[in-house]
């Protein structure tokens, strides 16, 4: 009934099974004295696809986990997640969809200051990390998501973020000023060519002077 299983496949299977953390193909390979494990990973992924356990790739790292459709069987005793505040979920989403992003940029979208605890919670959860500084005046710290974020939310990569393509296409991931400028240009294009000169000037002047703050009174 059982066919013999390839030795390398068995070794990769056992390694990932015993691992306490997701492992990249390189890490698995290093653990198995440099063997090329990519085929074995694909084979295992296919083998486990219909089973109660799955082998999944999350941000280039592989891990075994239970099948999502069995959540109802497992959840009752294992609910251990701390609920995130609404602020924290919003900040997390903004970082994930815009990364890397500075705190000021997060606040521009949310319209409120981000309390110090909010980013801390996300960093403590291991989902968000500081990812350097933006090379603009003040050199603000910028934030990005981590591989653990992808693991936790079951994303193979950031491209898996729900609706990210639509949001991108709709320009909703662009800053307000950019979107505004685009809209004004479209408007200009729609109206007659005779007024284009005047409108162009207006458009060019507009966004420069009107920062996001000036759209409405900011809270502070």
């Amino acid at each position, binding site marked *: 009934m059982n066919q013999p299983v390839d030795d390398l496949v068995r070794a990769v299977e056992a*390694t990932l*099974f*015993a*691992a*306490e953390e997701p492992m990249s193909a390189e890490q698995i390979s290093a653990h198995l004295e440099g063997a090329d494990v990519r085929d074995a990973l694909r084979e295992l992924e296919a083998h486990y696809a219909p089973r109660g356990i*799955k082998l999944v790739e999350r941000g280039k790292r592989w*891990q*075994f*986990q239970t*099948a*999502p459709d069995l*959540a109802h069987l497992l*959840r009752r005793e*294992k*609910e*251990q*997640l701390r*609920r*995130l*505040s*609404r*602020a*924290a*979920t*919003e900040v*997390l*989403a*903004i970082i*994930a*969809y815009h990364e890397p992003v500075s705190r000021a940029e997060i606040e521009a*979208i*949310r*319209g*409120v200051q981000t309390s110090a605890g909010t980013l801390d919670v996300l960093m403590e959860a291991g989902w968000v990390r500081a990812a350097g500084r933006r090379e603009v005046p003040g050199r603000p710290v910028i934030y990005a998501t981590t591989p653990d974020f992808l693991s*936790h*939310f*079951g994303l193979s990569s950031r491209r898996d*973020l*729900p*609706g990210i393509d*639509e*949001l991108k296409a*709709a320009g*909703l991931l662009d800053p*307000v000023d950019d*979107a*505004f400028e685009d*809209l004004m240009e479209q*408007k200009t294009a729609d109206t007659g060519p005779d007024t284009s000169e005047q409108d162009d000037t207006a458009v060019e*002047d*507009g966004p420069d*002077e*009107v920062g*996001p703050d000036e*759209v*409405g*009174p*900011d*809270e*502070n």
Partner: protein
Amino acid sequence: MTADGLLFDAAEAGAGTEWEGPAAPTDSDVALYLELDGWEGPLDLLLDLARRQKVDLKSISILSLVDQYIVYIERAEALKLEIAADYLVMAAWLAYLKSSLLLPRDEQEDPSPEELALKLQLRLQRLGAMREAAGRLMGRDRLGRDVFARGAPEGLKVLRKNAWQCDWYQLVHAYGQVKLRTETVVHMVRERPVMTLDSALDRVSAMLGVTLDWMEIRAFLPKRTDKGGDDPRLQKSALASSFVAALELARMGKAEIRQEEIFGPLHLRRVSA
């Protein structure tokens, strides 16, 4: 372009209103008042009011949104609820925006009220999009809630084993160092032929007693033929001691010293009493 023409675009349509955290306020106005703390700032409240225009999410009216906001704030004030300053500032700004949008304009304002309204709408769109995205993100199959990692992984351990290095030379050399370090150290002082100051004093004063003439200091030294007198070290010691003895005798007034040139021979004679 009128304010009423400002639309939320399609991406806003069909947005789920579910996300984790505090439940969205109910439709009841009373609840609205009571849950003032439920909003994170004026933009959040505006977005929520916009979502309430359920007739058509695609065509939110900025003007009626402004009205709703202002009414909301006014009624909250009427109930003497404490309202954070930023809500009031937003209310004032929206009132200004509304009047600008409604009143005929003589002069060209820059930016125009339509542009300000458009920017406000764009901000609301972005916040709405992110709120929806957060909801969908939280609704995914999450590790530790919907899917689970192995409960008790054995763990992969890499044990570092030390391979100690030492060779024959280092071993033997180390032993040599220990031996050398702990060897008892003995200082040997060899016996040397010397003439003490006391014997020089005796000798010089005895010899001075024999004559009143000047005598060169070398004449006081032991003869080569004396016992051990051929030892240059004894000669050196005797010279030094005799010189000191001569100085001592001169200090006591028993002898005179004479030297005719620098480094010249040193003479001494008895002081006649």
